[in-house]
């Protein structure tokens, strides 16, 4: 797949260079009512890096990555995506979301549109790109996620794994710079998990910056450049996967890993 041409680079990323972190979080806080879900999270993601966020349920993992594309509005702190500040009342959401793609646990395909229409909708209607050009790209993306021949199937006619791969293709059609994956295999049958993971790995190998919230520890260990362990709204421990999975320093990390591995 060809990279996004330089001319479509957005104005908000003017001062950003690829050497700087592509996503930069500083002291991100978020509460729902009295419950503080994120209590000051800070880290950097470099361009092309694959980051996995692990941790027990309710530790704020999903909220954290939802803050990055402003699906959830953070209370305080700063997130910069390619230099664009997300915590800004005048945030250009269109600009942010064309840079950040997201894939959900429940696929969330549009059930009244075919697979190819799902992939084409946003580039055509949101970005106003030429329909014929988008269609050509959409067919290529369907091929890339190994769903050739399923272009005209409705989501209801596809298995969970196939739907999730359409969802990945749909995000890629916007030519994002960062991809967020929110427990994308959690709702899948065990036999279809693999096909989705293979697609994500290929994406990572092509140099796409990926942030994954996942419970697939084997996959995280294999694919991640960096693993963050979160619990009760903070990052307890982080490091390279082999380091974190074999010799975790923190008691909570060890307890979590011994339960899940």
């Amino acid at each position: 797949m060809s990279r996004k041409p330089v001319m479509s680079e957005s104005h908000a990323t003017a001062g950003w260079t690829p050497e700087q972190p592509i996503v930069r979080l500083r002291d991100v806080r978020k509460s729902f009512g009295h419950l503080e879900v994120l209590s000051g999270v800070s880290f950097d993601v470099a361009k092309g890096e694959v980051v996995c966020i692990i941790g027990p349920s309710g530790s704020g993992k999903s909220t954290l990555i939802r803050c990055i594309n402003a699906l959830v509005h953070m209370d305080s702190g700063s997130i910069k995506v390619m230099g664009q500040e997300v915590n800004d009342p005048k945030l250009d959401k269109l600009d942010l979301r064309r840079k950040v793609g997201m894939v959900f646990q429940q696929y969330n395909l549009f059930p009244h549109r075919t697979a190819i229409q799902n992939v084409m909708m946003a580039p055509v209607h949101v970005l106003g790109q030429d329909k014929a050009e988008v269609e050509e790209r959409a067919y290529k993306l369907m091929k890339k996620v190994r769903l050739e021949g399923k272009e005209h199937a409705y989501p209801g006619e596809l298995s969970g794994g196939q739907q999730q791969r359409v969802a990945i293709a749909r995000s890629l059609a916007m030519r994002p710079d960062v991809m967020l994956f929110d427990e994308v295999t959690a709702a899948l049958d065990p036999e279809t998990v693999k096909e989705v993971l293979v697609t994500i790995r290929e994406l990572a190998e092509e140099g796409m910056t990926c942030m994954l919230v996942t419970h697939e520890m084997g996959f995280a260990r294999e694919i991640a450049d960096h693993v963050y362990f979160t619990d009760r709204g903070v990052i307890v421990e982080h490091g390279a996967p082999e380091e974190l999975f074999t010799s975790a320093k923190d008691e909570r990390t060890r307890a979590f890993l011994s339960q899940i591995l």
Partner: protein
Amino acid sequence: MSDVPMNRREPAGKPFAVLLPYKRAAREPIKLRLRFIHALGFVGLSAIVGGAAFAQSGGAQLSALEVIFKWSPLLLYGFSFNILISVLAMSIGSVLGLGLGLVTMGHNLPARYTGWLLTQFFRNAPWLVLLFFAMFLIPFQFRIFGTTIPFPDWIKATIGFSLPVMANVAEIVRGAVRSLPSGQWEAAESLAFSRRQTLWMIILPQCVKRMLPPWMNLYTLVAMATVQASIVGVTEMLTLTSEVHAAEGGRPELLAPLYGFAMLCFFLYCYPIERFTHYLERRFNVQT
């Protein structure tokens, strides 16, 4: 088709209808099965009209059946007004109700509360009272730039009926939009669709299916409610029936056949719609 093997979905014995794949129901051809009970209803109603008419026949006076036959063009003309009023009220009310429903779910707080108040007010007011208000508050003609636009009674009645329709449609729209999983909104948002685009391209198309059965149900209620317009003097079937009765000398034995005929007309019009609504409900329910 799905990768999941069929034998996994269909255990031995009869599965619950909701567990069956959606496609199965979708393939069922659209047909209104006429069962014995339907014929019985029709025959029964006809018997009331015809039987009462036959019992009263004889003598120099026209039999009830002959009276109905003689006046049927006028009565059916009246019935066409009932249909016209109901269709117009439904159209106007649906367009307004869609707008009202969307405003009630919008981001603008004052508009939202106003919309909510309007919905609740018109939903919880008796239709007849709203009809009286429309009849007496709307002038019988408007003057715009020297031209007089007459506003006949039946148009005022139509407006009177479209108010409760509006409020009920607003609730139907709101309910349907709320029933969609929030993931649809999130996915659209993450793909940078604006709120308006999300609503018109993603949410509402999916809602049509969910809205159709209650919407049709509402229509049959409106169609049957249009006879209330006779109370405020609009020329429609019930008004004409009463006038025909008077014209035939007000014979008491004509009451049952004449009003029975009106009943029969409404039954023949509304019942198929009601059956079709049931069919749609069954079909759509299987999907979820």
